[in-house]
Structures are given as structure tokens and as C-alpha cells.
């Protein structure tokens, strides 16, 4: 199997060196499930830490949670961008994303703006405000990407259907 003239003695845990089509398929399924679990776990932990932060319960790793949350959003955005490029994004998700994503994004920006205005007027604008506004804006950007990906997914499917009809 594979090019035996270049056999290796080591390979990383995610390497597909030496795997055949069935093994690669199983690995891909495991990887996808792992990615999903990781995203949901990070989102859940971030939500809990943010809730604690809002109630002024400061515990270690809250800043690290923000970094993990950002990385998670980037990962999910890349996933949606790549899947929509091939038109394989879940169509029900795409449909809800086209409007839901836009509405959620606008609401998050509005929430961030209101937060800034209210805290500035009250004179309580501080680091806490920056963190909450940052989370709102990051999530808003992801929601807009989600909306765009939903639309692109349907466009790719429509273009593929037109190509088939022309043949």
C-alpha cells in the first residue's frame, strides 16, 4: 500500500499516511465528530465563564476562554466557508442562516453599541465593557459569515442544477 520507496517510521496522530480509502473515511468521520464536540464544548465553557464574569465572579482562565472562543469561531467560519464553496452545507441550516444570521449579527452589533453608549454615559466604561463588546462583535462577524455562506451554498446548488439542465 502507498509508495513503499518512501516508507516512514513515524507519523502524526492526524496523518493519513498509509491509510486506504475506508480508513480515511472512518478517520474523516471521527475528525468531524471530534471537531463538532470541541466547538460545542468551547461554546458551553465560554458561556459559563462569561456568565460568571457578568456576575463579577472572576476565576482564572477567563481571558484564555476568550481566546479559545475566538479560535472556535474562526474554525467554524472556515468550515462554513469551505462547505458552502462545494454546496454541501446542510440546506436546512443554510436556509435559517440566510435570515437568522443577518438578524443575529445586527442584534449583536446593536447590543454592543448600546453597551458602549450606556456605560460611557454612566461613566463605567472599563475593561469589562471591552470584553463583552469584543465577544458581541466577534460573534456578529461570525453570524454575517454564516449568512453569506448560507446564500453561497444555495447559489452553488443552483449553478450545479443549471449545468445539469443544459447537458
Amino acid at each position, binding site marked *: *500500500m*502507498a509508495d513503499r520507496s518512501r516508507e516512514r517510521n513515524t507519523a502524526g496522530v492526524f496523518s493519513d499516511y498509509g491509510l*486506504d*480509502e*475506508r*480508513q480515511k473515511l472512518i478517520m474523516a468521520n471521527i475528525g468531524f465528530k471530534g471537531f463538532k464536540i470541541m466547538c460545542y464544548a468551547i461554546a458551553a465553557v465560554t458561556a459559563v465563564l462569561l456568565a460568571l464574569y457578568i456576575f463579577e465572579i472572576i476565576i482564572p482562565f477567563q481571558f484564555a476562554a476568550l481566546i479559545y472562543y475566538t479560535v472556535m469561531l474562526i474554525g467554524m467560519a472556515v468550515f462554513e466557508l469551505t462547505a458552502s464553496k462545494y454546496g454541501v452545507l446542510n440546506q436546512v441550516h443554510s436556509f435559517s442562516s440566510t435570515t437568522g444570521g443577518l438578524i443575529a449579527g445586527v442584534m449583536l452589533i446593536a447590543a454592543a453599541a448600546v453597551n458602549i453608549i450606556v456605560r460611557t454615559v454612566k461613566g463605567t466604561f472599563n475593561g469589562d465593557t471591552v470584553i463583552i463588546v469584543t465577544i458581541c462583535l466577534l460573534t456578529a462577524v461570525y453570524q454575517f459569515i454564516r449568512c453569506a455562506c448560507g446564500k453561497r451554498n444555495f447559489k452553488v446548488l443552483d449553478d450545479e442544477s443549471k449545468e445539469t439542465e443544459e447537458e
Partner: protein
Amino acid sequence: MAKNLKLKSARAALDMSQQALAEKVDVSRQTINAIEKGDYNPTLKLCTDICRALGKTLDDIFWENE
């Protein structure tokens, strides 16, 4: 999924082991075993490679009799 007994008998007719067939079509022995047990649906490319290795057609090995 049903077992692929045709593949097993075609392989046995040539006195070929699962390992030998696996090496011929560049997959693992476990994958040949999974195909014979009906646990894995191979791609069309792998199906044609297997048929070529056994000197059979797709109908002979992978067509289900109704």
C-alpha cells in the same frame, strides 16, 4: 448490508488470500474483509480494481441478485 459472497468465492477460486488481494488493489486486508462482510461499500474505482485483479466483471462480483 448483505455479505459479498461472490467476492469471497471469486477470490477463493483463484486461491488468493485476502492479504494478497489487498496488496494487488492497494488497500488493507481489513478493508477487503469489511467488503466481504458487507460492512463497507467500496468506491467505484476500488470495485473496478478488485474486478480487474480477479479477472471478473462488476456484475459478477458487485451486482446483487434480486
